[in-house]
């Protein structure tokens, strides 16, 4: 019997390991435009200790290990580029501690956003975490590792800014803790100890997160989405500036898309507000619409399209549905909010060039300190030509993002290379040193963030 298979079976149990083609086939797929790549093995550990043993074994055998959460980051980030073991972390989905008064929850990293949301709904309805617009199977670990953002990004920033502590299995197998939990105290803060922030933004190539303490935030009783619309893209940064000054919103997302037609060449700004009473809600609406945005309305250049709309959670993008075949991938970019007009115009040009209805969206991060601006390209999975078109559009977008002064978020390998080509050489060398130090055998998700 294959010794790696045997070792894996011994660690996780026969039921949770496979080298069978039908399972490897499933794990070879990515939802986006990436070509399928099969791993040699799939293993689903249950504990950090099992992860650690697998990693130690992989170092001995010099076999790559690729951590996998929900597998829906769309950019092929969890595909086994050099084969090896795909480590499916979804069994590590426990809730370890909920501390209501200190507003944090400690979870295993493979827990899905959907499970966490429903757990909080049941056990701590006054609390919520920042949920991304991804399907609910997306994991907490997979999301913070790529610096995801969710529906509390406007008040509280990136999801990876909401970490109070974490446990990581290093590429050499040691289990390390960071934050107050590292000194045996509770999991309530990441600061003020020496900064060892080496694991986020690396697409799992510097270690495997196994536990995370996540900040929770007040979840108010009444939630609604209001919608403000403008035609002139140049107004969007101003309006977001006004709205972030008012500070009443919980989530701010500006979007424009060709299909359905009502969104075409218009900019919708979705404003989520919440409150514990009708009075609080009306106060917030008043401050935003009657005070900060009144002049746009009276000048006839902006208008309230709706108030009091129900908020779906998660608010999953539907842009894949507009083309037959149900596929889509997007380039996410982190941009200054002031770049919205240019992002929109350039994104639309690329879509037109590649015959794809344009779909763009920008979610405000912090008090308009930044914006995750996405350019989505739909394709028909059954039609390789449309997949090729979408891939080309994605690559062109990667270039464009950097050209206009943005940063690519969760870049695919193609985008990672573009980013590293532009990176300050000293920083790049430091990245290389860190990676070599942590992962001397280069087994951890190799091919990602690889400094040549």
């Amino acid at each position, binding site marked *: 019997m294959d010794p790696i298979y045997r070792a894996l079976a011994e660690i996780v149990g026969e039921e949770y390991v496979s080298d069978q083609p039908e399972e490897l086939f499933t794990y070879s797929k990515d939802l986006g435009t990436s070509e399928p790549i099969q791993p040699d093995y799939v293993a689903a550990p249950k504990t950090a200790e099992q992860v650690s043993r697998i990693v130690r074994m992989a170092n001995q055998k010099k076999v790559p290990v690729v951590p996998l959460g929900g597998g829906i980051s769309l950019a092929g980030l969890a595909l086994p580029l050099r084969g090896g073991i795909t480590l499916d972390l979804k069994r590590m989905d426990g809730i370890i501690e909920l501390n209501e008064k200190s507003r944090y929850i400690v979870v295993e990293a493979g827990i899905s956003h959907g499970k966490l949301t429903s757990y909080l709904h049941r056990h701590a309805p006054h609390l919520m975490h920042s949920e991304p617009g991804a399907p609910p199977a997306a994991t907490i670990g997979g999301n913070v590792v790529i610096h995801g953002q969710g529906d509390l990004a406007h008040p509280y920033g990136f999801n990876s800014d909401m970490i109070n502590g974490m446990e990581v299995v290093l590429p050499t197998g040691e289990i390390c803790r960071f934050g107050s939990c590292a000194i045996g105290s509770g999991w309530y803060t990441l600061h003020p100890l020496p900064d060892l922030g080496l694991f986020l933004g690396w697409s799992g190539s510097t270690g495997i997160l196994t536990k995370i303490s996540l900040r929770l935030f007040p979840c108010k009783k009444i939630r609604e989405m209001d919608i403000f*619309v*403008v*035609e002139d893209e140049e107004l969007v940064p101003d309006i977001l500036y006004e709205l972030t000054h008012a500070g009443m919103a919980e989530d701010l997302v500006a979007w424009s898309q060709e*299909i*359905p*037609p*009502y*969104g*075409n*060449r*218009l*900019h919708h700004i979705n404003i989520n507000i919440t409150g514990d009473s*009708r009075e609080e809600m*009306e106060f917030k*609406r*008043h401050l935003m*619409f*009657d005070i900060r945005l*009144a002049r*746009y*309305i*009276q*000048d*006839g*250049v*902006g*208008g*309230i*399209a709706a*108030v*009091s709309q129900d908020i779906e959670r998660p608010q999953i993008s539907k842009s894949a549905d507009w083309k037959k075949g149900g596929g889509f991938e997007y380039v996410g970019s982190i941009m200054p909010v002031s770049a919205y007009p240019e992002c929109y115009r350039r994104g639309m040009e690329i879509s037109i060039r590649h015959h794809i209805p344009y779909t763009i969206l920008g979610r405000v991060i912090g008090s308009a300190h930044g914006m995750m601006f996405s350019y989505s390209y739909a394709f028909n999975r059954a039609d390789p030509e449309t997949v090729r078109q979408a891939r080309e559009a994605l690559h062109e977008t990667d270039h464009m993002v950097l050209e206009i002064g943005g940063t690519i978020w969760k870049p695919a390998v193609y985008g990672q290379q573009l980013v590293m080509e532009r990176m300050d050489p000293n920083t790049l060398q430091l990245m290389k040193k860190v990676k070599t130090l942590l992962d001397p055998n280069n087994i951890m998700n190799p091919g990602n963030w690889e400094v040549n």
Partner: protein
Amino acid sequence: MIELDFNEKKCLACKTHDCLTKCQYLDLDKDAAGMEMQKIIKGEDSHVLHDCVTCYACEEYCPMGNHPFYLIVSRQEALGITPLPEPLIKRGVQMGIPFRGDPEIEEVQGPVLNMGAFSDLTHLIQGKLFEGLTLISTDPRKMFHYFCQLMYLHYGRISVINERLGKIIQTFAFHNVNQVIHFHDECYGAYTSYAPAFGIHVPFQSVHFFEYLYHRLTTLKNDIQPLNFKVAYQRPCSSRLSSDKYAFVDKIFELIGVEHVERKYKHENALCCGGSILGQKRAGSRALAMELQRKNIQDMKQAGAEFCVFNCPACMLTMGKPVAENQIQPIFMSDLCRMAVGEKIT
């Protein structure tokens, strides 16, 4: 050339100018109203064109059978005085563009029920009240092929209605229908009020939804269990285009044994749900919409209404939630009628 048939002489001869003096959102006496109407007829600017909240009620108030509201909207467009900010107009106009292929047209026999642009409410049409009825526009992806376009009266865009309505009528004609029951007041108004006023030929006969319900209930009389509820009715703006059919509201209520509560904002004095006012350009429009809602619901409450009955999905969307928060149950008229004939509403 599609043009409004507005009888200026009749208007000038009017002794009351009820169109504007009865308006709940403007404050004009008879003389001022007469003067403003003259300006509007002549194509001159009038504050009415700016202050109109587009509630449609003047169509009903006019004692001369004229079309003051259609005239106001026509002039708003001609003079570039739009009630809404431009982006909302563009959004609304684009909303009505069908984009997912043509509908499958089948010839239908007998009367049909037209869901218009509310295909996603087709689930309301079930049970014995609707047995044997053919439905059209049941596919939300294709519903804009049946969209009566009258919504653009709120947008100061008569031209859009006139440009598109012919094509919509043609879609009905392809079905070879001769009698169409319209789920929404607005569709009924489009084919029985707007189209004749603009000389647009409609090759089918229209039936108001309430008239249909009333007749069906009459034939099912033996099945009716009086509901004994106290109800308020949220009369939609488009009901003003068919005020002759409004009487069916009370006829239905009587038949199913509910009490239409006496209140200030009833019948002719019904208040707008606020949906179309909310986004208007005029300073204070959003707050006005909220205030109207508050007054309206307060009025229902004071009158002891247990249910608020809707027919217009837009009114339901705007007011359903706040009504429910005030312990009054929002309900569609069709559901209320179904309850009366012993059916379970889910």
